[in-house]
Protein backbone atom coordinates (compact mmCIF):
# COMPACT_ATOMS: atom_id res chain seq x y z
CA UNK A 1 0.00 0.00 0.00
CA UNK A 2 1.13 3.50 -0.65
CA UNK A 3 2.23 5.68 2.18
CA UNK A 4 0.24 8.67 1.05
CA UNK A 5 -3.03 6.80 1.15
CA UNK A 6 -2.32 5.66 4.69
CA UNK A 7 -1.56 9.08 5.97
CA UNK A 8 -4.25 11.03 4.23
CA UNK A 9 -7.35 11.16 6.33
CA UNK A 10 -10.48 10.85 4.24
CA UNK A 11 -12.04 14.25 3.69
CA UNK A 12 -15.46 12.77 4.08
CA UNK A 13 -17.04 9.37 4.05
CA UNK A 14 -18.77 8.72 0.75
CA UNK A 15 -22.15 7.23 1.31
CA UNK A 16 -23.53 4.41 -0.78
CA UNK A 17 -26.18 5.55 -3.21
CA UNK A 18 -29.07 3.81 -1.56
CA UNK A 19 -28.40 5.08 1.92
CA UNK A 20 -31.54 5.74 3.90
CA UNK A 21 -33.88 3.26 2.23
CA UNK A 22 -33.41 0.66 4.90
CA UNK A 23 -36.27 -1.25 3.28
CA UNK A 24 -34.02 -2.84 0.66
CA UNK A 25 -31.30 -3.70 3.12
CA UNK A 26 -32.80 -5.76 5.88
CA UNK A 27 -31.33 -8.68 7.63
CA UNK A 28 -32.87 -11.86 6.20
CA UNK A 29 -32.12 -15.55 6.58
CA UNK A 30 -31.18 -15.71 2.90
CA UNK A 31 -28.56 -13.03 3.42
CA UNK A 32 -27.13 -14.66 6.52
CA UNK A 33 -26.96 -17.92 4.55
CA UNK A 34 -25.19 -16.18 1.66
CA UNK A 35 -22.70 -14.70 4.14
CA UNK A 36 -22.03 -18.08 5.77
CA UNK A 37 -21.51 -19.62 2.33
CA UNK A 38 -19.05 -16.83 1.52
CA UNK A 39 -17.21 -17.46 4.79
CA UNK A 40 -16.82 -21.20 4.26
CA UNK A 41 -15.64 -20.92 0.67
CA UNK A 42 -13.02 -18.27 1.48
CA UNK A 43 -10.84 -20.19 3.94
CA UNK A 44 -8.33 -22.86 3.07
CA UNK A 45 -9.35 -25.18 5.89
CA UNK A 46 -12.53 -25.95 3.95
CA UNK A 47 -10.57 -27.12 0.92
CA UNK A 48 -8.22 -29.14 3.12
CA UNK A 49 -10.92 -30.91 5.10
CA UNK A 50 -13.01 -31.68 2.01
CA UNK A 51 -9.94 -32.93 0.14
CA UNK A 52 -9.03 -35.15 3.11
CA UNK A 53 -12.52 -36.56 3.23
CA UNK A 54 -12.32 -37.50 -0.42
CA UNK A 55 -8.73 -38.67 -0.67
CA UNK A 56 -8.68 -40.66 2.57
CA UNK A 57 -12.01 -42.36 1.90
CA UNK A 58 -11.34 -43.25 -1.72
CA UNK A 59 -7.68 -44.09 -1.19
CA UNK A 60 -8.18 -46.38 1.79
CA UNK A 61 -11.13 -48.09 0.13
CA UNK A 62 -9.04 -48.81 -2.95
CA UNK A 63 -6.17 -50.10 -0.81
CA UNK A 64 -8.23 -52.46 1.32
CA UNK A 65 -10.04 -53.82 -1.72
CA UNK A 66 -6.77 -54.34 -3.54
CA UNK A 67 -5.40 -56.18 -0.52
CA UNK A 68 -8.47 -58.22 0.35
CA UNK A 69 -9.97 -59.00 -3.06
CA UNK A 70 -8.00 -62.22 -3.43
CA UNK A 71 -9.11 -63.67 -0.09
CA UNK A 72 -12.67 -62.48 -0.52
CA UNK A 73 -12.87 -64.23 -3.85
CA UNK A 74 -11.90 -67.63 -2.45
CA UNK A 75 -14.56 -70.23 -1.87
CA UNK A 76 -15.78 -70.44 1.71
CA UNK A 77 -15.25 -66.76 2.49
CA UNK A 78 -17.83 -65.48 4.96
CA UNK A 79 -16.74 -61.85 5.15
CA UNK A 80 -19.36 -59.32 4.00
CA UNK A 81 -17.99 -58.17 0.63
CA UNK A 82 -20.29 -55.13 0.61
CA UNK A 83 -18.59 -53.76 3.72
CA UNK A 84 -15.37 -53.18 1.79
CA UNK A 85 -16.52 -50.84 -0.96
CA UNK A 86 -16.94 -47.83 1.33
CA UNK A 87 -14.45 -48.92 3.99
CA UNK A 88 -12.28 -45.79 3.78
CA UNK A 89 -15.13 -43.56 4.89
CA UNK A 90 -14.61 -44.91 8.39
CA UNK A 91 -11.50 -42.72 8.49
CA UNK A 92 -12.46 -40.04 5.99
CA UNK A 93 -15.47 -39.12 8.11
CA UNK A 94 -13.16 -37.48 10.67
CA UNK A 95 -12.67 -34.67 8.14
CA UNK A 96 -16.41 -34.06 7.98
CA UNK A 97 -16.57 -33.88 11.76
CA UNK A 98 -13.64 -31.44 11.82
CA UNK A 99 -15.14 -29.25 9.10
CA UNK A 100 -18.33 -28.86 11.13
CA UNK A 101 -16.39 -28.12 14.30
CA UNK A 102 -14.24 -25.49 12.57
CA UNK A 103 -17.24 -23.62 11.24
CA UNK A 104 -18.10 -22.86 14.85
CA UNK A 105 -14.79 -22.79 16.73
CA UNK A 106 -12.67 -20.84 14.24
CA UNK A 107 -14.87 -17.81 14.92
CA UNK A 108 -14.19 -18.06 18.63
CA UNK A 109 -10.45 -18.52 18.16
CA UNK A 110 -10.22 -15.29 16.17
CA UNK A 111 -12.93 -13.35 18.00
CA UNK A 112 -14.75 -13.04 14.68
CA UNK A 113 -17.93 -14.32 16.29
CA UNK A 114 -18.43 -10.80 17.61
CA UNK A 115 -18.27 -9.37 14.10
CA UNK A 116 -20.73 -12.00 12.96
CA UNK A 117 -23.20 -11.29 15.74
CA UNK A 118 -22.89 -7.52 15.37
CA UNK A 119 -23.88 -7.92 11.72
CA UNK A 120 -26.49 -10.59 12.39
CA UNK A 121 -27.72 -10.52 15.99
CA UNK A 122 -30.35 -13.20 15.34
CA UNK A 123 -28.37 -16.04 16.80
CA UNK A 124 -30.68 -18.94 15.96
CA UNK A 125 -30.62 -17.79 12.33
CA UNK A 126 -26.84 -17.65 12.35
CA UNK A 127 -26.58 -21.20 13.68
CA UNK A 128 -29.24 -22.44 11.25
CA UNK A 129 -27.37 -20.82 8.35
CA UNK A 130 -24.14 -22.49 9.41
CA UNK A 131 -25.90 -25.86 9.69
CA UNK A 132 -27.43 -25.42 6.23
CA UNK A 133 -24.10 -24.61 4.63
CA UNK A 134 -22.35 -27.54 6.30
CA UNK A 135 -25.16 -29.91 5.35
CA UNK A 136 -25.25 -28.82 1.71
CA UNK A 137 -21.52 -28.96 1.21
CA UNK A 138 -21.07 -32.36 2.86
CA UNK A 139 -24.15 -33.88 1.26
CA UNK A 140 -22.68 -33.24 -2.17
CA UNK A 141 -19.11 -34.11 -1.31
CA UNK A 142 -20.06 -37.14 0.77
CA UNK A 143 -22.12 -38.60 -2.07
CA UNK A 144 -19.36 -37.96 -4.59
CA UNK A 145 -16.88 -39.56 -2.21
CA UNK A 146 -19.07 -42.63 -1.78
CA UNK A 147 -19.43 -43.10 -5.53
CA UNK A 148 -15.72 -42.65 -6.11
CA UNK A 149 -14.90 -45.07 -3.28
CA UNK A 150 -17.25 -47.63 -4.72
CA UNK A 151 -15.84 -47.30 -8.22
CA UNK A 152 -12.27 -47.55 -6.97
CA UNK A 153 -12.87 -50.45 -4.58
CA UNK A 154 -15.21 -52.35 -6.84
CA UNK A 155 -12.64 -52.28 -9.63
CA UNK A 156 -10.46 -54.68 -7.64
CA UNK A 157 -13.40 -56.84 -6.57
CA UNK A 158 -14.56 -57.10 -10.18
CA UNK A 159 -11.17 -58.52 -11.15
CA UNK A 160 -11.86 -61.42 -8.77
CA UNK A 161 -15.36 -61.78 -10.09
CA UNK A 162 -17.02 -60.70 -6.84
CA UNK A 163 -17.86 -57.11 -7.83
CA UNK A 164 -21.14 -55.47 -6.88
CA UNK A 165 -23.52 -53.62 -9.16
CA UNK A 166 -24.44 -49.97 -8.77
CA UNK A 167 -27.96 -51.01 -9.67
CA UNK A 168 -28.16 -53.05 -6.46
CA UNK A 169 -30.59 -51.31 -4.07
CA UNK A 170 -28.28 -51.51 -1.07
CA UNK A 171 -25.34 -50.17 -3.04
CA UNK A 172 -27.26 -47.16 -4.27
CA UNK A 173 -28.64 -46.55 -0.78
CA UNK A 174 -25.10 -46.60 0.61
CA UNK A 175 -23.91 -44.09 -2.00
CA UNK A 176 -26.47 -41.46 -1.07
CA UNK A 177 -26.29 -42.69 2.50
CA UNK A 178 -22.61 -41.70 2.52
CA UNK A 179 -23.63 -38.15 1.71
CA UNK A 180 -26.38 -38.15 4.33
CA UNK A 181 -24.16 -39.60 7.02
CA UNK A 182 -21.25 -37.17 6.64
CA UNK A 183 -23.66 -34.24 6.30
CA UNK A 184 -25.29 -35.02 9.64
CA UNK A 185 -21.89 -35.79 11.13
CA UNK A 186 -20.73 -32.32 10.05
CA UNK A 187 -23.74 -30.77 11.80
CA UNK A 188 -22.93 -32.90 14.85
CA UNK A 189 -19.46 -31.32 14.78
CA UNK A 190 -20.95 -27.85 14.37
CA UNK A 191 -23.13 -28.34 17.43
CA UNK A 192 -20.21 -29.72 19.43
CA UNK A 193 -17.97 -26.85 18.35
CA UNK A 194 -20.61 -24.29 19.20
CA UNK A 195 -21.03 -25.81 22.65
CA UNK A 196 -17.31 -26.05 23.41
CA UNK A 197 -16.00 -23.00 21.51
CA UNK A 198 -12.58 -24.59 21.31
CA UNK A 199 -11.21 -26.46 18.30
CA UNK A 200 -8.86 -28.95 19.94
CA UNK A 201 -11.32 -29.73 22.72
CA UNK A 202 -14.22 -30.29 20.37
CA UNK A 203 -12.17 -32.45 17.98
CA UNK A 204 -10.96 -34.59 20.88
CA UNK A 205 -14.42 -35.05 22.34
CA UNK A 206 -15.93 -35.68 18.90
CA UNK A 207 -13.42 -38.31 17.87
CA UNK A 208 -13.53 -39.96 21.28
CA UNK A 209 -17.30 -40.12 21.18
CA UNK A 210 -17.59 -41.47 17.63
CA UNK A 211 -14.63 -43.84 17.57
CA UNK A 212 -13.46 -44.77 21.02
CA UNK A 213 -16.63 -44.76 23.11
CA UNK A 214 -18.61 -46.13 20.16
CA UNK A 215 -16.46 -49.24 20.24
CA UNK A 216 -15.85 -49.44 23.99
CA UNK A 217 -19.53 -49.66 24.89
CA UNK A 218 -19.39 -53.07 23.20
CA UNK A 219 -17.77 -54.22 26.41
CA UNK A 220 -20.75 -53.28 28.54
CA UNK A 221 -22.43 -56.62 29.25
CA UNK A 222 -25.95 -57.67 28.49
CA UNK A 223 -28.84 -56.14 26.59
CA UNK A 224 -27.98 -52.73 28.00
CA UNK A 225 -24.55 -52.82 26.39
CA UNK A 226 -26.05 -54.06 23.16
CA UNK A 227 -28.48 -51.16 22.97
CA UNK A 228 -25.86 -48.66 24.02
CA UNK A 229 -23.72 -49.86 21.12
CA UNK A 230 -26.62 -49.60 18.71
CA UNK A 231 -27.50 -46.08 19.82
CA UNK A 232 -24.05 -44.49 19.88
CA UNK A 233 -24.12 -41.74 17.22
CA UNK A 234 -21.36 -43.10 14.97
CA UNK A 235 -22.68 -46.66 15.14
CA UNK A 236 -26.27 -45.73 14.51
CA UNK A 237 -25.49 -43.27 11.73
CA UNK A 238 -22.84 -45.06 9.73
CA UNK A 239 -24.94 -48.09 8.81
CA UNK A 240 -26.66 -46.10 6.09
CA UNK A 241 -23.31 -45.41 4.44
CA UNK A 242 -22.36 -49.08 4.18
CA UNK A 243 -23.65 -51.66 1.71
CA UNK A 244 -23.26 -54.27 4.43
CA UNK A 245 -21.89 -53.98 7.92
CA UNK A 246 -19.14 -55.94 9.65
CA UNK A 247 -21.22 -55.75 12.79
CA UNK A 248 -24.53 -57.60 12.36
CA UNK A 249 -25.95 -56.22 15.62
CA UNK A 250 -26.30 -52.60 14.46
CA UNK A 251 -29.63 -50.92 13.76
CA UNK A 252 -31.10 -51.14 10.27
CA UNK A 253 -29.66 -48.40 8.00
CA UNK A 254 -32.66 -46.06 7.93
CA UNK A 255 -33.59 -46.67 11.56
CA UNK A 256 -30.04 -45.99 12.60
CA UNK A 257 -29.87 -42.87 10.50
CA UNK A 258 -33.08 -41.57 12.05
CA UNK A 259 -31.61 -42.15 15.52
CA UNK A 260 -28.38 -40.37 14.58
CA UNK A 261 -30.26 -37.44 13.01
CA UNK A 262 -32.40 -37.19 16.13
CA UNK A 263 -29.36 -37.17 18.41
CA UNK A 264 -27.74 -34.49 16.26
CA UNK A 265 -30.89 -32.38 16.22
CA UNK A 266 -31.02 -32.58 20.02
CA UNK A 267 -27.36 -31.58 20.35
CA UNK A 268 -27.89 -28.71 17.90
CA UNK A 269 -30.92 -27.51 19.83
CA UNK A 270 -28.92 -27.46 23.07
CA UNK A 271 -26.08 -25.67 21.28
CA UNK A 272 -28.51 -23.11 19.84
CA UNK A 273 -30.16 -22.50 23.17
CA UNK A 274 -26.80 -21.90 24.86
CA UNK A 275 -25.58 -19.83 21.90
CA UNK A 276 -28.48 -17.43 22.30
CA UNK A 277 -28.17 -17.31 26.08
CA UNK A 278 -24.43 -16.92 26.52
CA UNK A 279 -22.28 -13.83 26.09
CA UNK A 280 -20.48 -13.89 22.76
Amino acid at each position, binding site marked *: *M*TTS*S*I*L*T*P*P*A*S*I*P*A*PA*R*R*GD*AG*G*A*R*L*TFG*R*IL*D*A*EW*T*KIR*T*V*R*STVWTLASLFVVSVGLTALICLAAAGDLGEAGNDEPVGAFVTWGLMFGQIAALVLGILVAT*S*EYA*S*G*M*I*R*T*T*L*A*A*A*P*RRWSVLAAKATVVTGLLLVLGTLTAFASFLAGNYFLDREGIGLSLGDGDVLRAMFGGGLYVAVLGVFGLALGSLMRHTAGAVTVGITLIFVVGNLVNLVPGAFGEWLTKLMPGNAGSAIANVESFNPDLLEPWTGFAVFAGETALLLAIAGWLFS*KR*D*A
Partner: protein
Amino acid sequence: MGRSVAAMITAERLTKRYGDKTAVDAIDFTVRPGAVTGFLGPNGAGKSTTMRMVMGLDHPSGGGVTVNGRAYRDLPAPLHEVGALLEAKAIHGGRSAYNHLLWLAKTNGIPRRRVDEVIGLVGLEAVAHKRSGGFSLGMGQRLGIAAALLGDPGVLLFDEPVNGLDPEGIRWIRNLIRSLAAEGRTVFVSSHLMSEMALTADHLLVIGRGQIIADTDMADFIARNSAAYVRVRSPQSGVLAEALRDRGWRIGRDDDGALKVEGATPEQIGDVAGSRNLYLHELSVVNASLEEAFMRLTADSVEYHARTDQPVPAGV
Protein backbone atom coordinates in the same frame (compact mmCIF):
# COMPACT_ATOMS: atom_id res chain seq x y z
CA MET B 1 -34.37 7.91 9.58
CA GLY B 2 -30.58 7.71 9.36
CA ARG B 3 -28.72 10.43 11.25
CA SER B 4 -31.78 12.03 12.72
CA VAL B 5 -32.32 13.07 16.30
CA ALA B 6 -32.98 9.44 17.08
CA ALA B 7 -29.39 8.35 16.34
CA MET B 8 -28.37 7.83 19.92
CA ILE B 9 -27.21 5.30 22.41
CA THR B 10 -29.19 5.30 25.64
CA ALA B 11 -28.37 3.20 28.67
CA GLU B 12 -30.64 2.89 31.67
CA ARG B 13 -29.54 1.21 34.89
CA LEU B 14 -27.27 -0.88 32.68
CA THR B 15 -25.64 -3.57 34.81
CA LYS B 16 -23.28 -6.47 34.23
CA ARG B 17 -22.21 -8.91 36.89
CA TYR B 18 -19.66 -11.67 36.46
CA GLY B 19 -20.22 -13.99 39.39
CA ASP B 20 -20.16 -11.73 42.42
CA LYS B 21 -18.14 -9.06 40.67
CA THR B 22 -20.08 -6.10 39.30
CA ALA B 23 -18.27 -4.94 36.17
CA VAL B 24 -20.89 -2.35 35.20
CA ASP B 25 -23.00 -0.98 38.01
CA ALA B 26 -26.43 0.39 37.04
CA ILE B 27 -25.13 3.17 34.79
CA ASP B 28 -27.25 5.72 32.93
CA PHE B 29 -25.92 7.66 29.98
CA THR B 30 -26.82 9.02 26.58
CA VAL B 31 -24.50 9.35 23.61
CA ARG B 32 -25.69 12.04 21.23
CA PRO B 33 -25.23 12.65 17.51
CA GLY B 34 -22.90 15.18 15.95
CA ALA B 35 -20.25 14.87 18.63
CA VAL B 36 -17.49 12.56 19.75
CA THR B 37 -18.30 11.19 23.18
CA GLY B 38 -15.20 9.97 24.96
CA PHE B 39 -15.61 7.00 27.29
CA LEU B 40 -12.74 7.35 29.68
CA GLY B 41 -11.73 5.05 32.49
CA PRO B 42 -8.78 3.16 33.93
CA ASN B 43 -8.13 -0.49 33.10
CA GLY B 44 -10.94 -2.76 34.19
CA ALA B 45 -13.39 0.11 34.66
CA GLY B 46 -16.04 -1.54 32.48
CA LYS B 47 -15.65 0.24 29.14
CA SER B 48 -15.41 -2.82 26.92
CA THR B 49 -18.13 -4.61 28.84
CA THR B 50 -20.46 -1.64 28.34
CA MET B 51 -19.69 -1.52 24.63
CA ARG B 52 -20.30 -5.24 24.22
CA MET B 53 -23.69 -4.80 25.85
CA VAL B 54 -24.52 -1.92 23.49
CA MET B 55 -23.75 -4.28 20.60
CA GLY B 56 -25.97 -7.02 21.98
CA LEU B 57 -22.96 -9.31 22.41
CA ASP B 58 -23.09 -9.58 26.19
CA HIS B 59 -26.42 -9.78 27.94
CA PRO B 60 -26.98 -7.24 30.73
CA SER B 61 -27.59 -8.63 34.21
CA GLY B 62 -29.95 -5.71 34.77
CA GLY B 63 -31.24 -2.57 33.08
CA GLY B 64 -30.81 -2.12 29.38
CA VAL B 65 -29.38 -0.17 26.50
CA THR B 66 -30.89 0.88 23.20
CA VAL B 67 -29.49 2.13 19.93
CA ASN B 68 -31.75 4.44 17.97
CA GLY B 69 -34.52 3.53 20.36
CA ARG B 70 -34.28 -0.25 19.95
CA ALA B 71 -32.43 -3.10 21.55
CA TYR B 72 -29.55 -4.05 19.25
CA ARG B 73 -31.00 -7.45 18.37
CA ASP B 74 -34.19 -5.76 17.13
CA LEU B 75 -32.43 -3.55 14.58
CA PRO B 76 -33.77 -4.51 11.14
CA ALA B 77 -30.43 -3.88 9.40
CA PRO B 78 -27.76 -3.51 12.10
CA LEU B 79 -24.80 -2.60 9.89
CA HIS B 80 -26.75 0.29 8.39
CA GLU B 81 -27.29 1.76 11.82
CA VAL B 82 -24.27 0.81 13.91
CA GLY B 83 -20.63 0.23 13.10
CA ALA B 84 -18.13 -0.95 15.68
CA LEU B 85 -14.45 -1.51 16.15
CA LEU B 86 -14.20 -3.59 19.29
CA GLU B 87 -11.10 -4.37 21.25
CA ALA B 88 -10.44 -7.90 20.07
CA LYS B 89 -9.04 -8.35 16.59
CA ALA B 90 -12.16 -9.98 15.27
CA ILE B 91 -10.89 -11.26 11.92
CA HIS B 92 -10.09 -14.76 10.67
CA GLY B 93 -6.43 -14.63 9.70
CA GLY B 94 -6.85 -17.05 6.80
CA ARG B 95 -9.29 -14.86 4.94
CA SER B 96 -8.37 -11.86 2.80
CA ALA B 97 -9.48 -8.39 3.81
CA TYR B 98 -11.69 -8.27 0.73
CA ASN B 99 -13.44 -11.54 1.52
CA HIS B 100 -13.87 -10.56 5.16
CA LEU B 101 -15.67 -7.39 4.13
CA LEU B 102 -17.58 -9.29 1.45
CA TRP B 103 -19.26 -11.79 3.77
CA LEU B 104 -19.96 -8.98 6.19
CA ALA B 105 -21.58 -6.89 3.45
CA LYS B 106 -23.75 -9.83 2.41
CA THR B 107 -25.37 -10.18 5.83
CA ASN B 108 -27.01 -6.77 5.43
CA GLY B 109 -27.48 -6.65 1.68
CA ILE B 110 -24.68 -4.13 1.13
CA PRO B 111 -23.52 -4.02 -2.52
CA ARG B 112 -20.03 -5.23 -3.53
CA ARG B 113 -18.93 -1.83 -4.74
CA ARG B 114 -19.26 -0.51 -1.20
CA VAL B 115 -16.64 -3.10 -0.19
CA ASP B 116 -14.21 -1.63 -2.71
CA GLU B 117 -15.17 1.83 -1.53
CA VAL B 118 -14.32 1.24 2.14
CA ILE B 119 -11.11 -0.55 1.21
CA GLY B 120 -10.08 2.59 -0.64
CA LEU B 121 -11.22 4.74 2.23
CA VAL B 122 -8.85 3.09 4.71
CA GLY B 123 -6.04 2.71 2.17
CA LEU B 124 -5.85 -1.09 2.04
CA GLU B 125 -6.16 -1.48 -1.76
CA ALA B 126 -2.71 -2.99 -2.19
CA VAL B 127 -3.21 -5.74 0.38
CA ALA B 128 -6.95 -6.32 0.03
CA HIS B 129 -6.49 -9.78 -1.45
CA LYS B 130 -3.76 -10.97 0.91
CA ARG B 131 -4.43 -13.12 3.98
CA SER B 132 -5.28 -10.78 6.83
CA GLY B 133 -3.29 -12.95 9.24
CA GLY B 134 -0.12 -11.27 8.01
CA PHE B 135 -1.39 -7.76 8.64
CA SER B 136 0.39 -5.39 11.00
CA LEU B 137 -1.51 -3.99 13.96
CA GLY B 138 -2.19 -0.78 12.06
CA MET B 139 -3.45 -2.59 8.98
CA GLY B 140 -5.70 -4.79 11.12
CA GLN B 141 -7.09 -1.67 12.73
CA ARG B 142 -7.78 -0.16 9.31
CA LEU B 143 -9.60 -3.31 8.27
CA GLY B 144 -11.67 -3.13 11.44
CA ILE B 145 -12.55 0.47 10.63
CA ALA B 146 -13.46 -0.44 7.06
CA ALA B 147 -15.83 -3.04 8.52
CA ALA B 148 -17.35 -0.46 10.85
CA LEU B 149 -17.96 1.97 7.98
CA LEU B 150 -19.33 -0.66 5.59
CA GLY B 151 -23.02 0.09 6.13
CA ASP B 152 -22.46 3.84 6.39
CA PRO B 153 -23.97 3.79 9.89
CA GLY B 154 -25.13 6.78 11.88
CA VAL B 155 -23.77 5.37 15.14
CA LEU B 156 -20.14 4.33 15.60
CA LEU B 157 -18.37 2.66 18.52
CA PHE B 158 -14.60 2.45 18.85
CA ASP B 159 -13.05 0.56 21.76
CA GLU B 160 -9.52 1.85 22.36
CA PRO B 161 -8.95 2.50 18.66
CA VAL B 162 -5.46 3.95 19.01
CA ASN B 163 -4.03 1.22 21.23
CA GLY B 164 -0.67 0.12 19.93
CA LEU B 165 -0.65 2.40 16.90
CA ASP B 166 2.23 4.59 15.80
CA PRO B 167 1.85 8.40 15.83
CA GLU B 168 0.77 8.53 12.18
CA GLY B 169 -1.85 5.87 12.76
CA ILE B 170 -3.09 7.68 15.84
CA ARG B 171 -3.40 10.92 13.94
CA TRP B 172 -5.24 9.20 11.10
CA ILE B 173 -7.80 7.64 13.43
CA ARG B 174 -8.22 10.85 15.40
CA ASN B 175 -9.00 12.79 12.21
CA LEU B 176 -11.34 10.09 11.00
CA ILE B 177 -13.27 10.07 14.26
CA ARG B 178 -13.57 13.85 14.25
CA SER B 179 -14.79 13.92 10.65
CA LEU B 180 -17.37 11.22 11.35
CA ALA B 181 -18.84 13.32 14.14
CA ALA B 182 -18.65 16.45 12.00
CA GLU B 183 -20.91 14.68 9.50
CA GLY B 184 -23.51 14.42 12.22
CA ARG B 185 -22.88 10.85 13.33
CA THR B 186 -23.00 9.60 16.88
CA VAL B 187 -19.46 8.59 17.83
CA PHE B 188 -18.61 6.75 21.04
CA VAL B 189 -14.88 6.22 21.69
CA SER B 190 -13.26 4.57 24.68
CA SER B 191 -9.78 5.23 25.96
CA HIS B 192 -7.82 5.10 29.18
CA LEU B 193 -5.76 8.14 28.19
CA MET B 194 -7.05 11.57 29.11
CA SER B 195 -4.61 13.25 26.75
CA GLU B 196 -6.06 11.31 23.84
CA MET B 197 -9.61 12.19 24.80
CA ALA B 198 -8.74 15.86 25.20
CA LEU B 199 -7.75 15.90 21.53
CA THR B 200 -10.65 13.88 20.19
CA ALA B 201 -13.76 14.16 22.32
CA ASP B 202 -16.39 16.86 22.61
CA HIS B 203 -18.13 15.20 25.48
CA LEU B 204 -16.67 13.15 28.26
CA LEU B 205 -18.09 10.17 30.11
CA VAL B 206 -15.77 9.01 32.86
CA ILE B 207 -16.24 5.52 34.26
CA GLY B 208 -14.54 3.99 37.26
CA ARG B 209 -15.26 0.61 38.84
CA GLY B 210 -18.38 0.25 36.76
CA GLN B 211 -19.86 3.59 37.74
CA ILE B 212 -20.17 6.86 35.86
CA ILE B 213 -18.17 9.38 37.83
CA ALA B 214 -18.37 12.29 35.41
CA ASP B 215 -20.60 13.17 32.48
CA THR B 216 -19.46 16.51 31.19
CA ASP B 217 -18.60 18.74 28.30
CA MET B 218 -14.95 18.38 27.32
CA ALA B 219 -14.47 22.16 27.21
CA ASP B 220 -15.95 22.51 30.70
CA PHE B 221 -13.77 19.76 32.03
CA ILE B 222 -10.66 21.40 30.63
CA ALA B 223 -11.61 24.82 31.92
CA ARG B 224 -12.24 23.46 35.38
CA ASN B 225 -9.24 21.24 35.59
CA SER B 226 -6.39 22.77 33.67
CA ALA B 227 -6.21 26.04 35.68
CA ALA B 228 -2.60 27.10 35.66
CA TYR B 229 -0.86 28.87 38.52
CA VAL B 230 2.34 30.81 38.93
CA ARG B 231 4.98 29.49 41.26
CA VAL B 232 6.88 32.19 43.12
CA ARG B 233 9.86 31.86 45.43
CA SER B 234 11.11 34.83 47.37
CA PRO B 235 13.20 35.29 50.54
CA GLN B 236 10.46 37.71 51.66
CA SER B 237 7.58 35.44 50.78
CA GLY B 238 5.42 36.52 53.75
CA VAL B 239 5.45 40.18 52.70
CA LEU B 240 5.04 39.26 49.04
CA ALA B 241 2.07 37.01 49.79
CA GLU B 242 0.42 39.88 51.65
CA ALA B 243 0.99 42.25 48.72
CA LEU B 244 -0.35 39.74 46.17
CA ARG B 245 -3.38 38.97 48.29
CA ASP B 246 -4.14 42.70 48.39
CA ARG B 247 -4.52 42.58 44.63
CA GLY B 248 -7.27 39.92 44.99
CA TRP B 249 -5.30 36.89 43.75
CA ARG B 250 -5.57 33.54 45.44
CA ILE B 251 -2.40 32.46 47.17
CA GLY B 252 -1.46 28.93 48.12
CA ARG B 253 1.73 27.24 49.30
CA ASP B 254 3.69 24.53 47.50
CA ASP B 255 5.27 21.72 49.54
CA ASP B 256 8.65 23.52 49.59
CA GLY B 257 7.13 26.79 50.82
CA ALA B 258 6.95 28.46 47.41
CA LEU B 259 3.83 30.53 46.71
CA LYS B 260 1.20 29.29 44.26
CA VAL B 261 -0.56 32.29 42.77
CA GLU B 262 -3.76 31.78 40.85
CA GLY B 263 -5.35 34.36 38.58
CA ALA B 264 -2.25 36.44 37.90
CA THR B 265 0.31 36.51 35.10
CA PRO B 266 4.06 36.35 35.85
CA GLU B 267 4.36 39.94 34.58
CA GLN B 268 1.79 41.20 37.07
CA ILE B 269 3.49 39.38 39.93
CA GLY B 270 6.92 40.66 38.87
CA ASP B 271 5.59 44.20 38.78
CA VAL B 272 4.12 43.94 42.27
CA ALA B 273 7.41 42.59 43.62
CA GLY B 274 9.42 45.27 41.82
CA SER B 275 7.26 48.11 43.07
CA ARG B 276 7.94 46.97 46.66
CA ASN B 277 11.61 46.16 46.13
CA LEU B 278 11.11 42.49 46.96
CA TYR B 279 13.55 39.89 45.67
CA LEU B 280 12.33 37.04 43.46
CA HIS B 281 14.22 33.71 43.20
CA GLU B 282 11.72 31.98 40.98
CA LEU B 283 8.77 33.00 38.86
CA SER B 284 7.33 30.19 36.71
CA VAL B 285 4.03 29.15 35.15
CA VAL B 286 2.84 25.66 36.10
CA ASN B 287 0.11 23.94 34.07
CA ALA B 288 -1.93 21.32 35.89
CA SER B 289 -2.24 18.44 33.47
CA LEU B 290 -5.57 16.96 32.47
CA GLU B 291 -4.07 13.57 33.10
CA GLU B 292 -3.63 14.54 36.74
CA ALA B 293 -7.18 15.81 36.91
CA PHE B 294 -8.37 12.49 35.52
CA MET B 295 -6.25 10.56 37.99
CA ARG B 296 -7.62 12.60 40.90
CA LEU B 297 -11.13 11.94 39.63
CA THR B 298 -10.64 8.21 39.39
CA ALA B 299 -8.22 7.82 42.30
CA ASP B 300 -10.80 6.00 44.40
CA SER B 301 -12.00 3.82 41.62
CA VAL B 302 -8.85 2.42 40.11
CA GLU B 303 -9.17 -1.33 39.82
CA TYR B 304 -5.57 -2.32 40.22
CA HIS B 305 -3.31 0.01 42.19
CA ALA B 306 0.37 -0.37 41.63
CA ARG B 307 1.68 -0.71 45.15
CA THR B 308 4.68 1.54 44.80
CA ASP B 309 4.26 2.93 48.29
CA GLN B 310 4.82 -0.43 49.94
CA PRO B 311 8.21 -0.82 51.59
CA VAL B 312 10.11 -3.77 50.23
CA PRO B 313 10.57 -6.28 53.04
CA ALA B 314 14.21 -6.67 53.96
CA GLY B 315 16.00 -9.78 52.87
CA VAL B 316 13.69 -10.62 49.99
